[in-house]
């Protein structure tokens, strides 16, 4: 009798609803967020542009149309001579250069974040959970990396290895990945550690421990998912950070090797001609702003979607 009454009181909609996983739920919530969808679409478009764009354009990013700029006595304005976004002072098609820049910026963004998460999350989690000696050892190690002025370290590293095989690989990009990646994981490690320090004192962790859940499972199933919001925001903000760091390197002249140009170096070059040829500054600036914005919106949407505590409150 008691058994039967229990099955009677089981909420009806729970029986009718298909069982869904956390990630499926999250994906559905993400699709409801318009800004995130727009951001995601732009990110995908940029990725496609970065992969296929250079094959679709009739112009090369490195060869200029010298006849055209002689005829015009200066760079082509947007639309002139069949160049949709105009050309730079050497007659190189700006759209083609921006598309090649997309390639560089997207690669930097992704590779650096993979390095950051791969090192930062495990180290931060171990330090935050175990505390004591392990925490000390890891945090002292990160102290050294962290106290190192990142830009100075990145610049020094770039200067030292610039003329070696390693520094020339992938048009100088490999060195950029390594230099930025080496310094940028520490922020995520400290963030994860801080989250775990605070979360491990909460009741649900105490409960999990009390029923004998192994440490590893508490960290991976309870603590890390609960710190996902801040991690995702840190990564979202880290992608623009990586793109900016790369553009700073290009600003000082030790980023990607010419004739290739990242958006950062295009903007730096455009600054020079800002008053007479504003399109050289504006289009690369729009490209970088678009990329930074869409990553930001996507990250925000992911945050709201992945936070299990929001579930059912939409």
């Amino acid at each position, binding site marked *: 009798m008691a058994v039967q009454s229990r099955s009677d009181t089981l909420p009806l909609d729970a029986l009718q609803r298909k069982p869904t996983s956390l990630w499926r739920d999250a994906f559905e919530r993400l699709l409801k967020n318009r800004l995130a969808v727009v951001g995601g679409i732009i990110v995908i478009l940029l990725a496609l542009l970065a992969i296929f764009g250079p094959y679709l354009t009739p112009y090369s990013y490195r060869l200029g149309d010298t006849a055209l700029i002689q005829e015009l006595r200066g760079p082509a304005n947007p639309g002139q001579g069949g160049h949709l976004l105009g050309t730079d002072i050497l007659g190189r098609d700006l759209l083609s250069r921006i598309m090649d820049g997309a390639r560089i910026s997207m690669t930097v963004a992704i590779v650096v974040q993979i390095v950051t998460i791969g090192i930062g999350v495990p180290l931060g989690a171990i330090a935050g959970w175990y505390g004591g000696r392990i925490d000390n050892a890891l945090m002292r190690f990160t102290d050294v990396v962290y106290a190192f002025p990142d830009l*100075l370290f990145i610049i020094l590293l770039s*200067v030292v290895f610039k003329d070696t095989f390693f520094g020339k690989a992938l048009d100088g990009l490999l060195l950029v990945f390594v230099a930025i990646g080496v310094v940028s994981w520490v922020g995520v490690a400290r963030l994860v550690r801080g989250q775990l320090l605070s979360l491990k004192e909460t009741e649900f962790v105490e409960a999990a421990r009390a029923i004998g859940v192994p440490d590893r499972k508490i960290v991976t199933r309870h603590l890390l998912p609960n710190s996902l919001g801040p991690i995702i925001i840190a990564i979202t903000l880290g992608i623009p950070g990586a793109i900016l760091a790369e553009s700073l390197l290009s600003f000082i002249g030790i980023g990607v090797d010419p004739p290739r140009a990242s958006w950062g170096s295009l903007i730096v070059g455009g600054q020079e001609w800002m008053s007479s040829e504003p399109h050289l500054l504006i289009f690369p600036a729009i490209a970088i702003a678009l990329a930074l914005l869409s990553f930001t919106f996507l990250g925000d949407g992911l945050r709201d979607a992945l936070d299990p505590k929001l579930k059912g409150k939409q």
Partner: protein
Amino acid sequence: MTTYILRRVLWLIPVLFVISVITFLLMHAAPGTPFQPRSDRPLPPAILERLERQFGLDKPIHEQYLSWVANFVQGDLGPSYANRGRDVSEIVGDNMWNSVQLGGMAFLFSVVLGIPLGVIAALRQNKWPDYFSTFFSVIGIATPSFVLAVLLVFAFSLTLDWFPTRGWSGPEYWVLPVVALGSYGVAQLARYTRASMLEVTRRDYVRTAQSKGLKERTIVVVHMLRNAFIPIVTILGPLLAGLITGSFVVESIYGIPGIGRFFIDAIGRRDYGLIMAVTMLYATLIAVMNLVVDVAYAWIDPRIRYS
């Protein structure tokens, strides 16, 4: 707590030691020397040799390092190779304050604008104050400081003629560089604050406070802000350090006589003494900021104990 702080301060010594060794090695591994930074303009070998002997650059690297440490401990930063006749400590002393001023003001600008924007956005989630705040932080994130710096010069100096283009001699000179440098901090703080506030909004103690019938103001100030600040505090220290150490692009665009400009120049010209001095200075600054963050952490969240 006092022992903890003391231990951390003592710990700075090995941290700085490791950093100085890495920098020293990297710096010397870079091709070229202070007297011949590039191989395309070689000095006559006899002169180069004499100069290197005079400044002790011909000795084995470990001896050079040890003599640098010995001088550094006594407060002697050595001569600047790129700026003949000037000491490194003189250059740092003359220019550091401007960088600190610029970074400090940009930090204040970020905190004063960013945290309230984040709090308001979280309290009015998905209403117009939230969109307003998001719009501002989006601009801050989407516009790199050097692009913003150029655009600000174009709009407010060249077009409107409200502020001077270059220099650092008075309050009217401070506005544009501080805005250009600080806007990223505003955006970052607003976003972190919003996320963190939303996180605590759903905590049980907030619901309890609400069900007790406390005023919204009391709940926000007493219960939510203090808890929401925990993750924010972790980024405040690095933010300030980053603003002071990362201002060189803004410094060079606005012609501000700060240390950042010298430090880029020093790397290009292999000015060993100046590179070491700036690295040690920045590293100390960053390490102290980290310590302040950790102490503030325990102070805000009594559940966290350091032993």
